[in-house]
């Protein structure tokens, strides 16, 4: 069995049509033996009943941004909320990986934007919503306003046998986590077994995706060194306004599309980073169904977590031009 099959515990599938990504984590709670016992113990320790669950990643709503290449403001974000609320199975959790709002030097304006984000997101009919800041939320004031609205910028919690870690690589104004948070991360993870399922969610990529576009974290290697001690780590991030998959060692990194506009493929473009404009002729030119599947079938005694494919479908959206590229089911195009 490939190393990735043994270690990956999340299967990601779905349209990811700018509305985020739906994940399904299916801890092998029902399996007998060491795997089942492990999750039972973990669940008891965290107070959560170990059971299968799904969750959503949303990213980069940039509430407050209005203008080219996206004149639609929060329409895609609002539509995403609507779609999540109409999923056949309600997810347990939404993770928002940063740039909730667009930056402004006017504190009052930024307050309004954060309030607007909260107003939209509170319509999501999901019991738990967790966020990390992006540089547009927190880069200008070292996260002071963000913390007033959303609490700590780095923290962790457990849910149904999975340990979630929110990492902040923006409030220092530079793309870095910093020594203090690194020490916290190490201490936070120290109580977990090597095989514990861990989901890290953060804003910027923890590796050098495109440093000249500031798609990196300068001490990302240090973070990865801490995470490398664990076999079942998945990193979710945003910032790049496109979906992306990357594997470093045993750790899988997944980026979610934004809810505002897209950036091009970093491997296909040299030179400056420019947003992809809307293309009326090819509304799905850089969008579409994204699937990433691993052999998630758990075998007794191997990976402690098995995973399921969950496909997120989108109803056709009729209305504002341009939003189609985010929200129309691409199968309807054929």
């Amino acid at each position, binding site marked *: 069995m490939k190393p990735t099959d043994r270690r990956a515990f999340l299967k990601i599938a779905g349209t990811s049509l700018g509305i985020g990504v739906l994940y399904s984590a299916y801890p092998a709670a029902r399996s007998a033996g060491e795997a089942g016992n492990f999750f039972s113990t973990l669940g008891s320790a965290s107070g959560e009943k170990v059971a299968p669950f799904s969750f959503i990643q949303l990213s980069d709503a940039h509430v407050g941004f209005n203008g080219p290449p996206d004149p639609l403001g929060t329409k895609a974000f609002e539509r995403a909320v609507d779609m999540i609320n109409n999923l056949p199975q309600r997810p347990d959790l939404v993770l928002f990986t940063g740039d909730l709002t*667009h*930056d*402004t*030097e006017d504190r009052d304006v930024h307050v309004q934007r954060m309030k607007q984000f909260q107003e939209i997101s509170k319509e999501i009919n999901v019991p738990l919503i967790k966020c990390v800041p992006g*540089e547009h939320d927190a*880069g*200008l004031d070292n996260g002071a306003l963000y913390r007033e609205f959303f609490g700590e910028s780095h923290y962790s919690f457990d849910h149904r046998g999975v340990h979630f870690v929110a990492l902040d690589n*923006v409030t220092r*104004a*530079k*793309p870095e986590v910093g020594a203090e948070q690194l020490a916290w991360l190490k201490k936070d993870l120290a109580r977990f077994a090597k095989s514990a399922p861990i989901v890290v969610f953060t804003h910027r990529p923890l590796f*050098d995706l495109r*440093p*000249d*576009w*500031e798609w990196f974290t*300068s001490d990302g290697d240090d973070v990865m060194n801490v995470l490398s001690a664990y076999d079942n780590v998945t990193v979710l991030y945003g910032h790049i306004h496109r979906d992306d998959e990357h594997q470093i060692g045993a750790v899988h990194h997944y980026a979610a599309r934004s809810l505002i506009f897209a950036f091009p493929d970093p491997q296909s473009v040299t030179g*400056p*980073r420019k947003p992809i404009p809307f293309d009326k002729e090819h509304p799905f030119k850089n969008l579409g169904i994204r699937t990433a599947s691993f052999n998630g079938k758990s075998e007794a005694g191997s990976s402690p977590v098995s995973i399921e494919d969950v496909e997120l479908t989108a109803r056709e959206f009729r209305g504002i031009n341009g939003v189609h590229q985010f929200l129309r089911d691409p199968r309807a195009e054929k």
Partner: protein
Amino acid sequence: MHASKRSVALLSYSSRMFLADSAVWRCNWVVGAEEVPVIDITAKRFAFSPDKITLKKGQTVRLRLHSQDVTHGFFLRPLKLDEEIPAGQTVEVTVTPQTAGTFTTICDHFCGANHGNMNMTIVVE
């Protein structure tokens, strides 16, 4: 004027004249124990000026970085450049490029809406 001083003066004068029309970079030769060329770079939202400089592989230069407004960063991993330019201040960094190529140096200290496009080119020949 002594010959040595005259030749230094001529060298200095000719260097300045040679570069007078160049919009790429301005170099002041420092006469002294260390003849390290100094290149002035200004950072102001959201651009560096000049936006392109050319260095020589193996030659040490001093970059004098000045912020005209807020705090900016000056980051380029291949040349081990990772500086913070405090608001309104000047910092200096010495670099000896070991690798030829064309590199993009970015501001990596978030400075506002168009921060993501604040960069400059360093060519190493």
